[in-house]
């Protein structure tokens, strides 16, 4: 009996994209794009429908490829992560989102100083002198370029 090794790096995204394609063509396009009763070329849905059909076909091909009994592991992802690395990525994504949420609350500069300090420590910076000088240089540079030179009104919060 041939043992089938499923290539998860192809199978999982293939399956997700396939279901998203189905949801898109059945629910999203009819709800989000108006219908046109005129010639087909005028239909705003036409191009989106063609693209979605293509993506469904391609995702099916990807699923079939992942199930085929060929040898896998020829191409290994350069970004394959172990469990501790996955946790680090999730933390960094959540903190980056937290940074964006904090921008209108604490203001751009206060949020930037807090999160820059956190990320410097998170990325493994240990010595305080480079940490403090990096924060100061970046903050002053951003202030001079964006606020003073380009006249950008950066979000100000309750503190600054």
């Amino acid at each position, binding site marked *: 009996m041939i043992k089938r090794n499923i290539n998860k*790096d*192809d199978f999982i995204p293939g399956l997700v*994209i396939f279901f998203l394609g189905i949801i*898109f063509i059945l629910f999203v396009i009819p709800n*989000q*794009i108006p219908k046109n009763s005129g*010639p*087909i*070329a*005028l239909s*705003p849905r036409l*191009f*989106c429908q063609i*693209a*979605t059909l*293509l*993506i469904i076909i*391609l*995702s099916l*091909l*990807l699923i079939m*490829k992942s199930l085929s009994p060929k*040898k896998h592991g*020829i*191409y290994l*992802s*350069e*970004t*394959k*992560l172990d469990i501790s*690395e*996955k946790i*680090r*990525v999730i*933390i*960094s*994504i959540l903190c*980056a989102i937290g*940074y*964006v949420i904090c*921008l209108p609350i604490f203001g*751009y500069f206060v949020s*930037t100083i807090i*999160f*820059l300090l956190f*990320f*410097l420590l*998170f*990325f*493994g*910076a240990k010595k305080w002198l*480079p940490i403090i000088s*990096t924060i100061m240089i970046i903050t002053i540079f*951003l202030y001079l370029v*964006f606020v003073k030179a*380009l*006249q*950008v009104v*950066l*979000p100000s919060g309750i503190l600054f």
Partner: protein
Amino acid sequence: MEHIFAGFYLFIQPSVLLATFFGVFLGTVMGSIPGLTATMAIALIIPMTFYLSPIVSIGMLVGAYKGGCYGGSIPAILLNTPGTPAAAATVLDGYPMARKGKALKALKMAIYASVMADSFSDIVLILISPPLALIALKMGPPEMASLIIFSLLIITLVAGKSMIKGLIAGVIGLIIGNVGLDPILASRRLTFGMYELDEGVALIPMLIGLFAVSEFFIHAAKKITSGKLKLYENSQNPDDNRVTALEMKSSLKIIGLASVIGTVLGAIPGIGPSISAYVSYGQAKRISKNPERFGEGAIEGVAAAEAGNNAVAGANLIPLLTLGIPGDLTAAVLLGAFMIQGLHPGPLLFKEHIDIIYAIFMSLLFANFCNFLIGTQYIKLASKVANIPKSIIFPSILVFCVVGSFATNQNPFDVWVMMFFGIIGFVMRRYDFPLAPLLIAFILEPMLETSFRQSLLMSAGSMKIFLDHPISFFILIMSVIFLFFIIKSNVKHKIKIFNFKKYN
């Protein structure tokens, strides 16, 4: 002639010269830091250029592109780590040279080869673009649609490791390009009730998210333990620290060959500088009298790789400027920058704004001069910059990403768009989906959709129109032939890799 003078007047402004110089400097610095690419340099510079005039901003971006192309060779030679993917072939002989104490010689050859190849490529661009644009002016909607399909097919099929994933990435780009107002009827599409999406997904936050924020997340996964990499000491022999006349003479033929290869490959959409560098390196080894020295620190190897990857820089602007089709990722980013400035690259730009085209040509040549000037001086500083700890680089990058996304429209929604595409970009890279087809398809979608639907309107809904027009038919036949060869070579390549893995 008066157009050339008008172009010269636009170019000679101090702000243009200064911006080009600054762009080259920034590109060189960013390219020399491993993990930061020329594309990322441009993505981070675009928000600053939004407030500048078109020529100033294009000069700065083109400068950053050229600087980034050369900058990538610095860590490749000094640290055995290519600063950009395009510099991977430079490692093969550059690092062995550094190990022998000849790092300065390798770096100097890299800058000479880069500037010569780049200038050759720019001259070809200047000579070929105007007549090509005249031909392009005669193309109607069916020809344009076929040409975009052909370009997208090449870009999606050669990008990344899997053809299917490349195609999926391209189609995702087309779907994202559908968001916003319909180009013909102006009805709202896929906006989910968010008025911020009426004009479509904003390019700059998307770009920054896909290429810079996703890089941040990838590097966040690994805890950086050691700060600095080992650098080899330079030799005390003065001849080991400079390129001798004899070495230059023996490398000139190779630089010429690599320039031609890079220019030809660069003009074809989808063939980026990495492929060109490897092809040039392979050909240089083949014609060399001492092929056994390649890989052991041959100066001709550095010359071939650097000339090969830099010759792409000018050539990939040929399809961009004449047809409005970006040849590679960086050209796609430049196209976005053009559009932000209200300029639409393509044959009409030659007709309506020929002075701007001439000014761009002049800033390309001036950027080469700056590249030489900065490159030869930057060598002294390079080892320090290339070795800046990643623990400092990447947190700083995120801060720049946030301010860059916000600054363009001063809209917090754009920062969320950036974050969304940062996560999407990370997931795609995790599963080996290439990002370049997504971005290029997204940028080309409005043009493709408009010409496709206009063609159908012309033919009362019949797809036969694409076969009835001779140029369109020819392009479609070319697409099929290309598809056949790519699939064939891909299967062969996989068999080769499988056999290699099996017996090693």
